[in-house]
């Protein structure tokens, strides 16, 4: 019976395709409309936070950190409330991770602060002596790519109807006009930091990566 198929490569390939495509359809499609709805009150990431999220991706923090609090008492005691689907509606891509070499970060904004992150990212061992997390000193000098983050905001607004305000538009002028807003947000963070080079850079209108990533980490609540 099957020998016939093995002599007809075309039907063989079609057969394989149908058999493997089938499961995908049943598993994935039914959930699609449902799971992209934001929970009430969820705000899209600010441009500075998006820039921080891109630093998180660039340096692959996901290699060690999850962002998914599972429904176990031990996890909610350690990290906070169970994660809900609607909280991720603006996460493109999702950043749940698959390995906790370090702790979960989905609500780290609730229990860590700017100055702590500053110390920790500069030298994790200075706050957690046994830490095996690498130091990210280069984030204090690398300048964050805010324009790309802005472009991302424009993209998700135009294509996925993410609710950003009218001032976010895909033109050079709109971007120039928006820049000072991002800088204002960065200044608030830099004010809570101690590193003088970072403060100077922000005063000059440049935003080091560390400021962006702290904005992002503080937002994780």
């Amino acid at each position: 019976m099957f020998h016939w198929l093995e002599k007809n490569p075309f039907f063989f390939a079609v057969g394989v395709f149908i058999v493997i495509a089938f499961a995908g359809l049943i598993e994935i499609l039914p959930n699609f409309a449902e799971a992209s709805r934001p929970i009430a009150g969820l705000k899209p990431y600010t441009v500075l936070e998006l820039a921080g999220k891109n630093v998180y991706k660039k340096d692959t923090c996901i290699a060690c950190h999850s962002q998914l609090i599972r429904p176990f008492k031990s996890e909610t005691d350690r990290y906070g409330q169970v994660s809900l689907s609607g909280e991720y509606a603006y996460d493109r891509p999702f950043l749940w991770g698959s390995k906790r070499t370090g702790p979960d970060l989905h609500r780290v904004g609730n229990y860590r602060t700017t100055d702590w992150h500053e110390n920790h990212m500069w030298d994790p061992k200075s706050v957690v002596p046994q830490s095996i997390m690498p130091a990210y000193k280069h984030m204090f000098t690398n300048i964050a790519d805010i324009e790309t983050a802005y472009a991302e905001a424009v993209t998700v607004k135009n294509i996925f109807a993410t609710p950003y305000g009218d001032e976010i538009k895909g033109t050079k002028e709109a971007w120039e006009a928006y820049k000072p807003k991002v800088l204002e947000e960065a200044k608030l963070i830099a004010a809570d930091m101690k590193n003088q080079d970072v403060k100077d850079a922000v005063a000059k209108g440049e935003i080091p990566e560390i400021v962006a990533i702290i904005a992002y980490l503080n937002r994780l609540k």
Partner: protein
Amino acid sequence: MQSNAALEYDYTVAKLFTYTAILFGLIGMLIGTLIASQMAFPELNYLFGEYGTFSRLRPLHTNVVIFGFTVSGVFATFYYLGQRVLKVSMAESKFLMFIGKLQFVLYVILALGMVVSLLMGYSTSKEYAQMEWPLDLLTVVVWVLWGISIFGLIGIRREKSLYISLWYYIACFLGVAMLYLFNNMEVPTYLASGGLGSIMHSVSMYSGTNDALVQWWWGHNAVAFVFTVPIVAMIYYFLPKESGQAIYSYKLSLLSFWGLMFVYLWAGSHHLLYSTVPDWMQTMGSVFSVVLILPSWGSAINMLLTMKGEWNQLTENPLIKFMVLASTFYMLSTLEGPIQAIKSVNAIAHFTDWIPGHVHDGVLGWVAFMIMSGLFHMAPRMYKREIYSKKLMEAQFWIQTTAVVLYFTSMWIAGITQGMMWRAVDEYGNLMYSFIDTVAVLHPYYAIRALAGVLYVTGFVMFAYNMIKTMSSSRELTEEPQFRSPMA
């Protein structure tokens, strides 16, 4: 039946991919050993500034071993054995020869682009799909070219019915094509924002839970269609060919194949247990993972039974040793996986080192063992020289076997311990351990794993050396060996 005496097969493309398999295997495993060492000795994070941290290197490790080493191995073995089981030579078609070479050239460009862009930090942060969109496009081209080669060769075949290995190569081609496309749907922000920001950057078409579903539909099946399906293709050819034994049971081959095709895709949601995807989907992933033991073990058992009565081959031929042990490690990972997919077990296993443990008994003991034995078997036929050293191969076998055992046992203990420590509460109901306690306790296991890495890489260097010597200076053969590979 008479085999190939009259036909001269053309191994140009198979040889090219053999070189990249060796090269990327070496690079990927060196990086693997480095990141393993960084977890034990974090000071090693600072060897190359921003480019040397664990987090920049880890995706480089996975991408180089998967898209560099494994995929090269898949292409090399296909271009070798595809001709032979179809009884046509690449030399018979100028067109296919051109496609094969073009595929290789583009593949090398892609691989370089991948290494450079990941080091620079261009990453979408989706596991096993980190490459940004321009490289995705190139990947699609390379893959389509491979498809043309597969179906082109099949189109001009002399052997009417497709050998088992080809079933699996076809499935590999189709599965990866479908899943890769869906998972990498992304919008380049530069194009969508009227030319603002970086041209490399993109956002995923899917968000949150949906993105997770698509990602692990791919992620799990990348395992299926890259680490399993084409490797099964290899063992179905190389083991009987090297041993001269006939396949134990056609029926078992058949049911295992269609069983695997049907069941594998359902299991993807075992990566999302206790997440925010609907309960029924998670349950389905768990249930089908358990079913999956059988079609997986079916192939392994078929291979072991093929060797019935051939104990002397097992003791005398290190290549047979590699392949028999590969089947066993395949059985280990395809039982361990399903058990880790049971929800209660996953509550402990997920997020811990037990998962990388499971991963590496598959990739080191099964994938890499099979690719190395395949290439070893091919070398005397492709270069018309005997294998340079049997002793070296024998030593390599024991060193690497020790390495795999050290790797998976240390991570097994580490993961189970860590998972249980995260959950532990003291007599008053408070968490017993701070997070850093659960990190510090792992140090000895991380050190053992780093040692395992050093051993495994040592074995791989021996493999590379043996191969290069075979290519260049080993004794020449006058006649192609029919079964057992000659070795000095």
